[in-house]
């Protein structure tokens, strides 16, 4: 069971727009080296490092070390607290829309 504290921790972490941008970029790339993250953004290297640390501590990304480089990936279960809560209702309505569409088609 996901606690309110877990939901808040994840929400708080992604509440920072720059950090969220870093997170979304990692999600988009699949896996990306910290150095590439710095190159492709206007944010300084220490700031990126700080955001990556916060994301890792919130359980939102995982890291893999390869020589001098550290690669980051999104942790699939990291967003679970948020997905569970509001996403449950979003999914509920999407599925109901699909049912509705099927029913409309049948009763043509």
């Amino acid at each position, binding site marked *: *069971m996901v606690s309110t504290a877990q939901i808040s921790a994840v929400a708080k972490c*992604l*509440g920072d727009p720059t950090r969220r941008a870093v*997170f979304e970029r990692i999600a988009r790339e*699949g896996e990306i080296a910290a150095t590439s993250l710095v190159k492709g953004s206007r944010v300084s290297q220490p700031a990126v490092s700080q955001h990556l640390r916060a994301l890792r501590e919130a359980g939102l990304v995982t890291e893999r070390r390869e020589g001098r480089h550290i690669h980051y*990936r999104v942790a699939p279960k990291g967003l679970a607290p948020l997905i569970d809560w*509001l996403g449950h209702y979003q999914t509920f309505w999407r599925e*109901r*829309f699909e049912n509705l569409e*099927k029913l409309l088609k049948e009763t043509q």
Partner: protein
Amino acid sequence: MSETRAITVEQVLPYAAEKIWHTLTTSELIAKWLMPNDFAAAIGHRFNFRTRPMGDWDGVVRCEVLACDPPRLLRYSWKGGSDSNTTHGTRLDTEVTWTLTPVEGGTHLKMVHDGFVLPQNQSAYDAMSPGWGKVLDGIARVTAEG
């Protein structure tokens, strides 16, 4: 004092608004696509949706028709859940609004489920919502690969 968030689902369907309205407001049809119910399209009518119980919640969504303007607008309250549930089946005091707009080739159907009270930190949720879809796409891809 409490701040809320809404869920929106919308789609253009290749049918006349009247036909969609009929499906949205006929009890037996609603049961087929949404949930068993005793709905009637009259302002002030109180009705229930029934789903499976969760925790302390009996699985009954208590509703009242708040607006009914065929075939354009339908709004009902949506109350249920329990304070002791933390995710599915949380206490809800919300509203569902259906809007039907004729467009070329059919009807634009929009559903807004409004009034979700957020646990904490409203600004974080607000800031997050624009990136939601993209983030989920990324997660889906990562999960599929893993």
